[in-house]
C-alpha cells in the first residue's frame, strides 16, 4: 500500500500550482467585479483541463480522460489556493451527466454550457408530499397539450434544495396513469420562471428557512416543450436511476466527517470536559468509526483510480456516515449541556450568524437527523446493502408491488 500519489501526479501538481499562481489573483476584488473575475478564471481553468473534465469541449467542458488521481490533485490544490472549483449543485452533478448519457443533441446544446457556467441552476423534482423513499409513487401529472407540442404539468414537488435559486427543474411526472407504476413516468426538464409555477421555502425543524434551504413547488398548468422530455415517454424512471447513482457518488466526502470530529474534540475542550473519562472513551470510540470511514474512502478512491470494483463496501458509505453523525450528535448533546437552551444565532437564516458558542452544535444535533432522511432514507440504504450488497432476496411487498420494473 502506498498513500502517496506518485511522481507523475506530483509533476501534475506542480503544473496546477503554476497555473493557479498565475491565474488566481483575486486581490481585493469585490461583488460584480469579483464575479466577473471568477467567471474568467473558470474559463481559463477549463482550458487548462482542470474543471468540467468529463464534459465535451463543444459544450464548454475540458474533455479530459478519467483520472481520479489528477482530479484529487486538482481538488487539493484549488482548495489550498482557495480558488473556485466547478459551480456544483444539481445541475453539474445530475443534469449534465444525465443529458450527456440520455439527452438529445438539442438538449445538450441548450443546457450544458449555461449550467456549467452557473447561469442555469437546477432543482430536483423527484420527491412529493408523502412519497418518502418511494420515489416511483409519482402523482404529479403530465398531459400533452391538444396540439401535442407541450407537456402540461399539475402537481406538487417537495424537498428541492437550492429551490429559491433554481431557474430550471428536472422532474418526474406521471404521463400514463394506467401503466404499471414504474412504467408510466416521464422525465422532464422545465423552466421554473413561468406563471404556472409557485415556490415556497420549507421551514425545517432547525428553524432554517432562508435562501439556501429546501423548497416545495406547486405546478398549476405549468408548461414545457415536448422536446425537453429526456428519454422515451413512460421510461422516466429508468432515466432518473442514472442521476440517483451520481448523487450517491457525490455524497460522503471523508474530510467533512474528519473535520467535524475534530470540532467535536474542540468542543469537549471548550466546555472543559476533555479530561472526563466518559468523554474520552466516547470520543475514541467514535473515532474508530470516523477513521474506518476515512480509510475506506481511500480504499474506494484507490479502486476507482485503478478501475477496479471495490465491491459491497461502496454501498455502505452513506449509511455509515449517517450513523456516525448520530453518534456524534448524541455526544455533542451531552457536551453542550445547558448551552443548548439557547438557539444558535442565525438559525433560520434570519440575520447574520455572528460569533456562536457551543450552542451552534444544536444545528448538528438536529441536522444529523436530516441525513437519515435526505438522499434515501436509512431503511432504504439497509435494503440496498442487504439486497445488492449481500445478495439477500428482495422484500416480498416490494417485489409484488414493483412487478419487476424497478432497478
Amino acid at each position, binding site marked *: 500500500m502506498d498513500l502517496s500519489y506518485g511522481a507523475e501526479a506530483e509533476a501534475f501538481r506542480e503544473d496546477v500550482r503554476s497555473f493557479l499562481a498565475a491565474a488566481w489573483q483575486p486581490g481585493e476584488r469585490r461583488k460584480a467585479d469579483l464575479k466577473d473575475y471568477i467567471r474568467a478564471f473558470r474559463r481559463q481553468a477549463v482550458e487548462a483541463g482542470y474543471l468540467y473534465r468529463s464534459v465535451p469541449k463543444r459544450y464548454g467542458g475540458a474533455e479530459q480522460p478519467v483520472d481520479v488521481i489528477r482530479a484529487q490533485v486538482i481538488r487539493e490544490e484549488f482548495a489550498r489556493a482557495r480558488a473556485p472549483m466547478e459551480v456544483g449543485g444539481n445541475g453539474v452533478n445530475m443534469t449534465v451527466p444525465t443529458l450527456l448519457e440520455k439527452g438529445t443533441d438539442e438538449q445538450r446544446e441548450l443546457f450544458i454550457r449555461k449550467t456549467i457556467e452557473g447561469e442555469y441552476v437546477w432543482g430536483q423534482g423527484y420527491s412529493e408530499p408523502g412519497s418518502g423513499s418511494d420515489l416511483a409513487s409519482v402523482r404529479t401529472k403530465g398531459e400533452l397539450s391538444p396540439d401535442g407540442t407541450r407537456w402540461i404539468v399539475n402537481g406538487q414537488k417537495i424537498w428541492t434544495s437550492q429551490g429559491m435559486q433554481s431557474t430550471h427543474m428536472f422532474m418526474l411526472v406521471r404521463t400514463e396513469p394506467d401503466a404499471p407504476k414504474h412504467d408510466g413516468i416521464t422525465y422532464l426538464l422545465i423552466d421554473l420562471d413561468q406563471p404556472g409555477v409557485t415556490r415556497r421555502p420549507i421551514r425545517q425543524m432547525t428553524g432554517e428557512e432562508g435562501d439556501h434551504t429546501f423548497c416545495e413547488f406547486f405546478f398549476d398548468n405549468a408548461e414545457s416543450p415536448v422536446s425537453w422530455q429526456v428519454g422515451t415517454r413512460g421510461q422516466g424512471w429508468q432515466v432518473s436511476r442514472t442521476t440517483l447513482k451520481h448523487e450517491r457518488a457525490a455524497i460522503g466526502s471523508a474530510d467533512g466527517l474528519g473535520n467535524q470530529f475534530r470540532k467535536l474534540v474542540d468542543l469537549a475542550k471548550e466546555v472543559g470536559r476533555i479530561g472526563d473519562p466518559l468523554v474520552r472513551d466516547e470520543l475514541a470510540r467514535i473515532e474508530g468509526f470516523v477513521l474506518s470511514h476515512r480509510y475506506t474512502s481511500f480504499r474506494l478512491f484507490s479502486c476507482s483510480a485503478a478501475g477496479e470494483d471495490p465491491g459491497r463496501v461502496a454501498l455502505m458509505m452513506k449509511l455509515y456516515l449517517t450513523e456516525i453523525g448520530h453518534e456524534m450528535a448524541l455526544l455533542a448533546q451531552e457536551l453542550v449541556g445547558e448551552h443548548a437552551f*439557547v438557539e444558535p444565532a442565525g438559525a433560520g437564516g434570519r440575520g447574520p450568524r455572528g460569533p456562536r458558542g457551543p450552542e451552534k452544535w444544536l444545528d448538528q444535533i438536529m441536522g444529523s437527523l436530516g441525513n437519515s432522511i435526505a438522499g434515501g432514507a436509512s431503511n432504504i440504504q439497509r435494503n440496498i446493502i442487504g439486497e445488492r450488497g449481500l445478495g439477500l432476496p428482495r422484500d416480498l411487498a416490494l417485489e409484488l408491488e414493483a412487478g419487476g420494473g424497478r432497478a
Partner: protein
Amino acid sequence: MRFHLSEEQIAIQDAVRGTLADCWPMERLHKFADSGDDFDPDSWAALMGLGLGGILLPDSGMGLLDAALVSEVAGEMAAPGPLIAQLLAVAAVARSGSEAARAHLDGLVAGTTIAALALGDSQFVQSARAAQVLLVGDRDGGIALVEAGEGVTIEPVQPTDRSRPVSRVSFAGAIRHELFSAGDPLAASLCDAALVLIAADALGGALHCTDISVAYAKEREQFGQPSGRFQALKHQLAHMALDAEPARALVWYAAYAWDAGLPDAARAAAMAKAHLCDVYVRSTRAAVAAHGGIGYTWEYGLNYWFRRAVLNRAWLGSPAEHRVRAAVMAGW
C-alpha cells in the same frame, strides 16, 4: 397492594389532556413559538382552572404521583410552562415557616401568582418574564423564594425549547424569603421532586412521539402498503414503545417513593431523571426518522418535542451526572 392507576388518576389525566387539546392545539403552539412570549395566559388559566395548583399542598389528599401524572400529560401535549415550577413552589411555600412567603400561597395555588424555577446552578429560567416569584436554589443547598422586580435581572434569549422559553436570569440584591436552610432535608427533597416531574414530562413526550409515529405508519402508504407493515419500521416502532412504556413504572415508583418517604426516594428520583431523559432523546430522534421528511419540517411540529427533550435532558443535571449520584447513593 396497588401499583397501577386508579380511575380518579386516569380521570385527572384525561381532564388535563382534554383541556390542553382545546386550548393548546398545534396552531396555538406554532403562534406562541414565534411570538417571543414566555408565558401563555389562556392555557395557564385553563389548567389552573382545573385546580392543579394545589396538588402538592400537604393536605391535598394527592401527592407527587398525581403531580407527575399531570406533568406527563403536559409533556405529551408540549404544554407551556411554568407548570413544574408552580407545583413545586406551592409544595415549598406550604411546607416552609416563612410568613412572608406564605403570603403568596393562595395566589400560587390559584395560579394568579406565577412561579418560576431557578434550582441548581442554571442561569436559565423558564417563563422568567411572567413570574412574580422565583423558587431559587442557593449555592449552599438552601431554598428561597425570590420576589420578581428590583434586583432580578432578566435577559431574554432565543430559546431552543419554544414551548417553554427561558431567559438568562440573575438575582443580585433581590428581595428573598428563605424557605429552607442548607442541610434541611426538605430542600433536598424538593429537588428530588423536581427531578421526578421532569422525568414525567419526558415520559409523556416520549410516549407521544411513539404514538404519533405509530399513527403515521398506519396511515402513510409506501410501495403500495402502509409503511408500518414493513418489518424494519415496525420493529423500530416496537423499540420506541419498548424504550418508553416499561419506564413508566420507574416514574411511578420514584413518585410513590417520594410520597411514602421511602429511604430510596432520592435515588429513585435520580434514576428516573437520568433514564427518562435518555429515553426522551432517543424517542424524539427515532420519531423524526420514522416520519421521514415531514417530521423534519417545522410545520409538522415534532421539533417542539425534540426541543423539549433537549431541555429536559440538561435541566437540573444531565443523565451522567445523576448516574454518578445514583452510584454514590448505592454505596458503590
